[in-house]
């Protein structure tokens, strides 16, 4: 099981790519979030980081499957 995570906003800069493909498996959004926070500690400093699964805001308890479309959407401040 592998995922393609689409990156938005500053998560592109923090992770250094516009998509991220972790090698590990994650059963829930929360597990993925923990992996991301551990791999890229700067993400923690966003304080809010929306994870969308199949174009829907996903709470941490949502289960993941390998066909899901996952996106990381951080807050954006510019105007």
């Amino acid at each position, binding site marked *: 099981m592998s995922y393609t995570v689409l990156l938005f906003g500053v998560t592109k800069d923090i992770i250094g790519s516009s998509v991220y493909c972790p090698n590990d498996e994650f059963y829930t959004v929360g597990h993925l979030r*923990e992996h991301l926070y551990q791999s890229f500690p700067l993400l*923690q400093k966003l*304080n809010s980081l*929306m994870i969308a699964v199949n*174009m829907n805001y996903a709470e941490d*308890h949502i289960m993941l499957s390998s066909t899901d479309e996952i996106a990381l959407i951080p*807050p954006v*401040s510019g*105007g």
Partner: protein
Amino acid sequence: MDFNRERYNRQVLLKDFGEQAQLKLLNSSVLVIGAGGLGVPVLQYLTGMGVGKIGVMDHDTISENNLHRQVLYATDEIGSSKARVAVERLKRLNPDVEFLCFNEQLTVNNALLIISLFDVIVDCTDNFQTRYLINDACVILNKPFVYGAIHQYEGQVSVFNYQGGATYRCLFPAAPENGVVADCNANGVLGVLPGIIGCYQANEVVKVIAGIGEVLTNKLLTIDTLNNKQSVFKFQPKQENQNITQLRSDDYKTLCSSTLMSITPLELAQKLALNEALQLIDVREQYELVYCEIESAVHIPLREIRMRVGELDPMNPVVLICHHGIRSRIACEELLSKGFTTVYNLEGGIDRWAREVDNSLQLY
């Protein structure tokens, strides 16, 4: 009501718009907070289309490095007030519009009064403090607000607090720590990006007022100008974010540090020594507790925190603890999203606590 039929002729002709929608625009009032990159196109098109009363709010003056994207202004106006120059210029575009010029910053002292004067608010600001202030004031006053924000080549648009819909806090419960998400001044921005996003914001304002089309409520529109990819993400309103009854007294200046704060083991030890009222919550699994734990901590595993949030007092500080400080941060966000005011994450978790404060504990 009579109106200038020649000026609005092309909109009155438009299918599903007509005189009725035009009259709704002419009878409406909109406050545009920020007259910079996003505010300029919003102001230009709302003025052109004939919103009856427009508030223009910006405390800033025009700089040369604004002009690549703030195309309402002129080089010979550098140093002048953005709000004043904008109003002067927009009056010439459409003298039917009544303008209110607010050459000042939105603060906790003026926000409720000023926002209460308008039907719809447009968030064209460039910082998180004002965005959260706008959100909270609009929730308190029950006003819809149209959000836009930009980052390098990307933009976001949404309509918050519209007919009971989701708010900005439902999407992003807490602001990032200072400096993580830099603004346009630090990151740079392509001149035309705020043009695109601001036009989308103006379009949503018209939909909200005129009652046409589908409003972007409970939806976040993201636009990437480099590849023209657009996405619409759906999200849900959370009841706790509707329960705001007053603005923060700190003027949202310490927004970031007062919401999700990190605390080092040494700092925590000091607070405990001073008997500060802290709720220590250990979010590890049961089997981890056998290795080591902090005595006064209550045990609520991460996966139960959502259900057991009622056991905690949201008005008093909470310190969240796990093995290395990762799971506890997720718990922090969960509590912040439930309206907790002061939430600390123990940096490095009990592992670092054991190394720096209590050597008697067993590492694992």
